[in-house]
């Protein structure tokens, strides 16, 4: 047997991130605590370099390499650029927070970069094996990040729950994959797709494997009834870690769903559509209803995430290109909104104190009208009020649903969005009409203020001019 060397160029960004992360890891152990800024700068340079590589790669069509295990396509490139930007934003928001809480260690950046590498591998997965490999790299880094604050019992508990439930979900996914492999005899997504496009599709074993795969995907999304870990992990982890978990991995979950269900099992759409209908309906109902009774804003945002995930799944289950594009647009819009909201929680937190209670937002307008204004825009966008991006994202998903004749789902999603508006507007009420519990403007470095303003401005701009991103999302699915 002779080996053919694979074409390495499509995976250049991944190799660069891996090399740089190892460099950061080695450099960091030789640094003194006062020089930790170098780790931060190196991590940012990693993201910048990776972005430059991906942006200039100019991929126009699907390219397979590494014997079909790695795929490079326009959708992957767009998602990767979003992930780099998100990770950079997370690092910037977190920097001062980590310093104040004695968490400014190299491991935060390394684990986040390794998690990002896992996301990149998932986005570019051409086979179920590389998909699972990326997923595990992401998950293991995440478990460690949640437990990162070692003296916090709450964080340890959250990490333990996340680890146990995550391991079960990975097991389910792996079991589903092994069943599909047993029935098709191939591990590559294009091979699986070719077999199901010709074979008799709906036999019981195939549906059995498919269900396990969908369970794995739903867990990684945090969709009801596989959502139990989301609120506990969001609440238990330090705010900087919550910010990361809430943002970039949702892009990964979207990529996981698209690669597995659309690229690989696209012809079984009739099978997984019903499952996703159940998941998304439950997510939207339970997410919005349970969020109402939360007094902890991290938990509230966790349930809000669950309902947003329901919307992303609604876009995917349409099975149409418009629906996938709408889901991708929704995922990106969600990431923009959620980084802003958690960024604000980080700004309000002080040394040893997390601003995680709704009461911490009382009278924010009298303390800092600027911050309150930013939060107002972010919260309005999450509630889906025009002209912000959340409105447009919801609108495209609903239009996609109506187009494939699932009007009842669109109506239900609409009704529960109105229910959900209650708890978003309550935050606005607390900020503008309640007495502040403490005085004094929250401290924040200039670059973080600029970042938060840019973040909120993006929410407004993407809502006012959605065409650019939307046409990009449509283009990558053609």
């Amino acid at each position, binding site marked *: *047997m002779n080996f053919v*060397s694979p074409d390495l160029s499509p995976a250049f960004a991944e190799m660069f991130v891996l090399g740089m992360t190892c460099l950061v890891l*080695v450099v960091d*152990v030789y640094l003194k605590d006062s020089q930790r800024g170098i780790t931060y700068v190196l991590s940012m340079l990693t993201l910048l370099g990776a972005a430059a590589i991906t942006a200039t790669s100019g991929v126009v069509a699907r390219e397979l390499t590494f014997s079909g295990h790695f795929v490079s396509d326009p959708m992957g490139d767009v998602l990767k650029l979003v992930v780099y930007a998100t990770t950079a934003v997370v690092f910037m928001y977190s920097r001062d927070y980590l310093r104040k809480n004695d968490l400014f260690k190299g491991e935060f950046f390394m684990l986040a970069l390794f998690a990002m590498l896992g996301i990149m591998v998932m986005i570019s997965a051409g086979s179920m094996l590389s998909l699972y490999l990326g997923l595990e790299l992401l998950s293991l880094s995440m478990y460690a990040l949640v437990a990162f604050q070692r003296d916090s019992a709450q964080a340890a508990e959250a990490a333990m729950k996340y680890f146990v439930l995550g391991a079960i979900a990975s097991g389910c996914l792996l079991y589903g994959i092994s069943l599909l492999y047993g029935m098709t005899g191939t591990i590559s997504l294009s091979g699986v797709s070719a077999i199901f496009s010709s074979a008799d599709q709906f036999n019981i074993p195939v549906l059995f494997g498919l269900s396990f795969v969908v369970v794995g995907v739903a867990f990684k999304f945090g969709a009801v009834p596989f959502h139990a870990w989301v609120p506990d992990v969001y609440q238990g982890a330090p705010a900087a870690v919550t910010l990361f978990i809430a943002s970039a991995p949702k892009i990964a979950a979207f990529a996981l769903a698209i690669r597995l269900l659309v690229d690989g099992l696209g012809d079984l759409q009739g099978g997984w559509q019903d499952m996703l209908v159940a998941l998304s309906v439950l997510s939207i109902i339970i997410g919005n209803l349970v969020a109402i009774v939360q007094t902890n804003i991290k938990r509230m945002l966790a349930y809000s995430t669950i309902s947003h995930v329901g919307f992303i799944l609604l876009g995917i289950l349409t099975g149409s290109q418009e629906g996938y594009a709408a889901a991708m647009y929704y995922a990106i819009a969600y990431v923009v909104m959620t980084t802003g909201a958690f960024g604000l929680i980080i700004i309000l937190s002080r040394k040893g104190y997390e601003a995680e209670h709704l009461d911490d937002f009382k009278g924010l307008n009298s303390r800092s009208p600027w911050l309150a204004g930013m939060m107002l825009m972010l919260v309005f966008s999450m509630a889906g009020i025009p002209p912000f991006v959340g409105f447009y994202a919801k609108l495209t998903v609903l239009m996609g649903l109506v187009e494939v004749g699932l009007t009842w789902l669109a109506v239900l999603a609409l009704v529960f969005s109105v229910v959900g508006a209650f708890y978003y507007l309550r935050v606005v009420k607390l900020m503008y009409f309640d007495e502040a519990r403490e005085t004094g403007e929250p401290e924040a470095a200039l670059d973080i203020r600029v970042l938060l303003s840019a973040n909120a401005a993006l929410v407004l701009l993407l809502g006012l001019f959605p065409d650019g991103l939307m046409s990009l999302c449509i283009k990558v699915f053609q």
Partner: protein
Amino acid sequence: MLENYLPILIFLLVGAGLGGVLLLLGFLLGRGGKDAQKLSPYECGFEAFEDSRMKFDVRYYLVAILFIIFDLEIAFLFPWAVALDGLGMFGFLTMAVFLLLLVVGFIYEWKKGALEWD
């Protein structure tokens, strides 16, 4: 028919011989000193017969985990070494990259002091 079992006979003889020679060497070259610790069945720090529900140092786990990493490395290296002929330069470089990544991890654990007992 019976000669098919010859390798097994040789294996048994070599096994018994090696075991016997090692015992004999220890008996001849060992420097006496038969205290209680030396005579215990397992000279690893634990009593052989006692309640197994006892506390022991969490650092044992750390050492065990670090050991597993290098143990797995060997598990990858053996088949690679056997098949190296067919893998060519690419296969060689792939394993070099893999070992380099392990070295990075090794530098990290060394500098972090994971290998120091105290």
